């Protein structure tokens, strides 16, 4: 019985070979191969069969990100992402019944400790010590029932590669690839993970996340600059709040809060799963129904209602670091679904793609003010109105201000001169080539499909963005530059070397 798919392989390969990319129908052919279906509980699947090699990549895209962190619990979306590797009742435990009781004991011990600690200077030192010990002991007890890291070990052992997850401002993604004979393993593990995750070893993992914060932000000049920059650029929208979380929030988040966060946001209609590789779409659908329809549907949360008010004037700051200079300049713009988004993509290409880009030629090649300079759209996310971000690393002996001035000249050029036809055509040619190159990676395609589905409402946008870029005119670029790149709409942040 198992032989049937084998016979199908050459046929599918033949079908693949006949796709031509000489014309745009190459993309159409790919589009046609993509199968989408939605389970009764609202969970959506996108499947792109690609049978070149017997491997398959999976991306679970959760429409929840650090933007959704409740006040006082910054970093919780990311912390939950870590917890999603800790297993389920049947994975990661020697005796879940006892473990569950032990975990509840940890929760209670931590609640008491936290309450006392939050008294600050009024806290009773003796009591703090005793509660600390009680908490430690409870954790040790819970650890006795652990089958530590079983969840990831199973994947590793099965030949899974690239196992990881990431939390952004807009989303949380979970991904890995497997040999294609093991797709059912993914269904079993992934559905269980979002059906009934057990947030075991929570407080130790919270320590790990604090180490991650120290690593990425507190011990990195660029990390500090970016965190500071967002907090200056945004005064209302949560894009301005540190995604990895403030240290004091991390120090106080509880397991129950993370559990609650999961219950609210990890409902099936908030998930999109993309499967790309050596699979049969029908088989994927059958398994999806079987495994994922177990997850009960829930009320879809409302989107964030806070919108960033228009900026009243330029914002500037400098931080002193033991580092060479870096400058970033951001301008507020609309979200990915706005009609001007493709114009910004074209601007980004013109300004910073390759050695013919305007910022490279001006700042790096000709004026020799910087060693790297660029500008890109969609920072720190794309779901909500975001920033177009310029940046430069000044060359030795040159300043942030010199780079700022040179970037300003290029912005002025966009505002006053129409971009020539060759430059615009180049941006369009490259957009098409980039899309073709992306098709070569299962993991990359899975990620793109899920992202477009969630951010724009349809994975087809991934292909339609080409049409949108193709429609961008020189006048559009001039208009957009004049409309958005204004002094009032600007935030400038820089690192200045600390004098010591």
């Amino acid at each position: 019985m198992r032989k049937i798919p084998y016979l199908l392989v050459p046929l599918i390969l033949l079908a693949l070979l006949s796709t031509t990319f000489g014309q745009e129908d190459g993309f159409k052919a790919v589009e046609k191969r993509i199968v989408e279906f939605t389970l009764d509980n609202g969970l959506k699947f996108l499947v792109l069969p690609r049978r070149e090699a017997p491997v398959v990549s999976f991306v679970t895209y959760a429409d929840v990100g650090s933007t959704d962190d409740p006040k006082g619990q910054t970093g919780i979306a990311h912390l939950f992402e870590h917890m999603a590797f800790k297993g389920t009742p049947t994975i990661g435990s020697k005796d879940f019944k006892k473990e569950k009781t032990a975990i509840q004991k940890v929760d209670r011990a931590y609640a008491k400790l936290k309450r006392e600690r939050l008294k600050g200077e009024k806290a009773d030192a003796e009591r703090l010590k005793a509660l600390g010990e009680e908490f430690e002991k409870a954790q040790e007890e819970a650890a006795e029932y652990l089958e530590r890291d079983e969840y990831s070990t199973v994947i590793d052992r099965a030949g899974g590669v690239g196992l990881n997850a990431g939390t952004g401002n807009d989303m949380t993604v979970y991904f890995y690839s497997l040999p294609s004979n093991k797709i059912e393993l993914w269904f079993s593990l992934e559905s269980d993970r979002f059906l009934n995750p057990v947030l075991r070893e929570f407080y130790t993992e919270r320590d790990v996340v604090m180490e991650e914060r120290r690593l990425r932000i507190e011990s990195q000049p660029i990390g500090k600059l970016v965190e500071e920059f967002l907090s200056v650029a945004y005064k209302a929208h949560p894009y301005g709040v540190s995604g990895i979380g403030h240290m004091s929030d991390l120090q106080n988040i509880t397991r129950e809060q993370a559990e609650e966060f999961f219950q609210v946001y990890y409902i099936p209609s908030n998930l999109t799963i993309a499967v790309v590789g050596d699979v049969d779409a029908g088989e994927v659908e059958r398994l999806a129904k079987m495994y994922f329809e177990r997850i009960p549907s829930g009320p879809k949360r409302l989107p964030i209602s806070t919108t960033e008010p228009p900026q009243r004037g330029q914002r500037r700051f400098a931080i002193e670091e033991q580092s060479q200079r870096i400058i970033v300049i951001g301008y507020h713009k609309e979200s990915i679904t706005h009609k001007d988004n493709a114009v910004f993509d074209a601007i980004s290409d013109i300004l910073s793609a390759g050695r013919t880009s305007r910022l490279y030629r001006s700042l790096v090649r000709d004026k020799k003010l910087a060693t790297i300079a660029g500008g890109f759209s969609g920072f720190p996310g794309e779901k909500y109105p975001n920033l177009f971000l310029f940046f430069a690393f000044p060359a030795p002996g040159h300043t942030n201000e010199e780079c700022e001035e040179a970037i300003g000249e290029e912005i002025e050029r966009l505002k006053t001169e129409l971009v020539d036809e060759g430059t615009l055509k180049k941006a369009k040619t490259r957009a098409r080539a980039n899309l073709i190159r992306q098709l070569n990676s299962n993991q990359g395609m899975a990620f793109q499909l899920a992202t477009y589905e969630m951010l724009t409402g349809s994975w087809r946008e991934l292909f339609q963005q080409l049409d949108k870029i193709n429609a961008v005119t020189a006048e559009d670029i001039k208009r957009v530059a004049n409309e958005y790149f204004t002094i009032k709409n600007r935030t400038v942040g820089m690192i200045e070397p600390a004098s010591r």
Partner: protein
Amino acid sequence: MKRYLNFFLGLLVLFGFVSEAGAQKVKHYKQLKYPALREPVVPEPARYELPNGVVLFLLEDHELPIIELSAIVRTGARWEPADKIGLASITGQVMRTGGTTTRTGDEIDDELEAIAASVETFIGGNSGGARVSVMREDVDDVLNIFADVLMNPAFREDKIDLARIQQRDGIARRNDNVLGITSREFTKLIYGGASPYARHTEYETIENITRDDLIAFHRQFYAPNNVMLGIWGDFDTDEMKKKIELAFKDWQRSEIDVPPVPEVPYKFGQRIYFIQKDDVNQTNVRVGHLGGRIDDSDYFALDLASEILGSGPASRMFKNIRSAQGLAYSVGASWGANYDYPGIFQGGGQTKSESSIRFIRAILKEIQDMTESEVTDEELRVAKEGILNSFVFNFDTKGEIVNRILRYEYFGYPKDFLQQYKRNIEKVSKADILRVAKKYFKPDQMVILAVGRAEDFDEPLSTLGTVATIDITIPEPEEVLPEPTEETVAKGKEILADAAEAAGGGRLKALKDITQVGEMSMVTPQGEFAVALESVLKLPLKFRQTMKMPFGEMTMVFDGETAWMKSAQGIQDAPESQKKEIQSSVAREPLYILMNYDLPRYTVQFVKEETVDGTKAHVVLVHDSETDQAVRLFCDSKTNRLVKSSYTAPWMGTPAKMEEFYSDYETVNGITIPFKTLINKDGQKAAETVWTEVKVNAGVTDALFTRE
């Protein structure tokens, strides 16, 4: 309720109550049975050797309309001269950016980017190479450019300059990132700072590199018989072979003398090092010693051992140090093995400053444990299955297959080495792992490096043993002074004689004292602010400077022998370094030089003509042997007045390139002096002095220079 279904099911599974669940039932992973994996079709690239020696691997892949190419050239930074570190890297870069004999790099950029293609060249540690990516329809043009770049690079000077700026920037920024510091310094500790496998660029090694060096380095290694190409994508093999032959037909075979692979001497022993980094709250830790080579017979067992020890979420380090103790976000270890020289066995990660020593101990313990008892059956199974089950990912793209075969051939490995690896991994036993761990892991002879804030550590690093501290201050380039010749010395003196004449001639020689009163504005990160300044110079050599600031007055005095400072807090001796700097500043004072350049302490030579703010100037280099410093004086070729001087001097603790620009000349008592001086530090304005009152030979008494 549904929520608990899985839970019960799981329990049933654990207790073995369910035999085999039906085909349509949700299964726990332990119940899953997998169909056999479809054997991946592993195509073998076609190998050709062209008449001029180019080795070519071709593999068709018609899924997408793209053609990709990788080249390997037998060269590498390990063969660049020790005083020109950076040569290989710059050669690899400028080969492409500097264009060819018939087109500039900029023209190539324009041509390639218009069609979304790329051709990039580079030279790394033990090989050189290139990558090309192009849409099928543009392949002919792009192959021609690629061949031209390999065969006829022009190494234009403007792009060498650009590469030098990038190199200098890399040096200046190399201590900005603590992870970078840790890797770089640890590698030097293992191989030795001067080893071709660890050494790195310095301002001086970059300065030493000339265009001729690039041309010579290219000539030494780039010939068709020293190049291998791998191409995969949407083409026909026979046609592609012809295209390559055509593109490289004019490239003549030549004798390439590839130097031997540098040896790696190593002496085992425990050594502990520390680097202070004030601006972090985490300690970066690296421990390890020399590793081995991929062709060692024990490599397979060591690879599995390091998998169990410290690679990935199933490893001991991840489980015990990250998951169980929460000590680190990233922690791990690996048996470092390279193709043709020994790698580094290393473990490490980062932890908060307050758990530094605990973390180091935890890492060392895991290594120690590996040498003391056998791993469990389960550990070995997990590690082996992880490698074997993911084996298919070695063949999931054509690019991987082609690049691997290039690499194996380049390093002289059998082309089925990966299959051999698989067979050997399958054979490794628990006893093998213990045997190799005992033989190769030396937990008591580790090099340990910690980078962080010592004052926050849980225990002093010295509790682990004797600690040596590493200074990572970036050495400033030594100024290379041109050799003086009779001619340049004579011309230099002539120019200074004219300048001395312009400054007052006989009156200058008779100068006894000079008092200047005015204002200095200083540029600080908080903005510019001004202080009142009074400066008195009495000859032979006494010096006094008073600054009046909003919060009080500060006076600095040098009486010819000692120096001190006077402020509201009283009198304090100036530290030796400051005294030296005062002496240096007097010695490089242009007026002082113009009076004394004939003394044996000064060497004077003409260097060149240069334009300063539109004024043509002679540049005279003056070296003072007493203070061992060099200053360049720029004399207006028309008026003979000084327009500028430049020198290196400490500025807030670090050496800086200083420039002084002189203007607003006025004559006081026969002496012509600038009333305005602009001071630049590293090309940026740092201060400006404007004198409002200048007195010459006013009869300054010694009382001004005595301690009260």
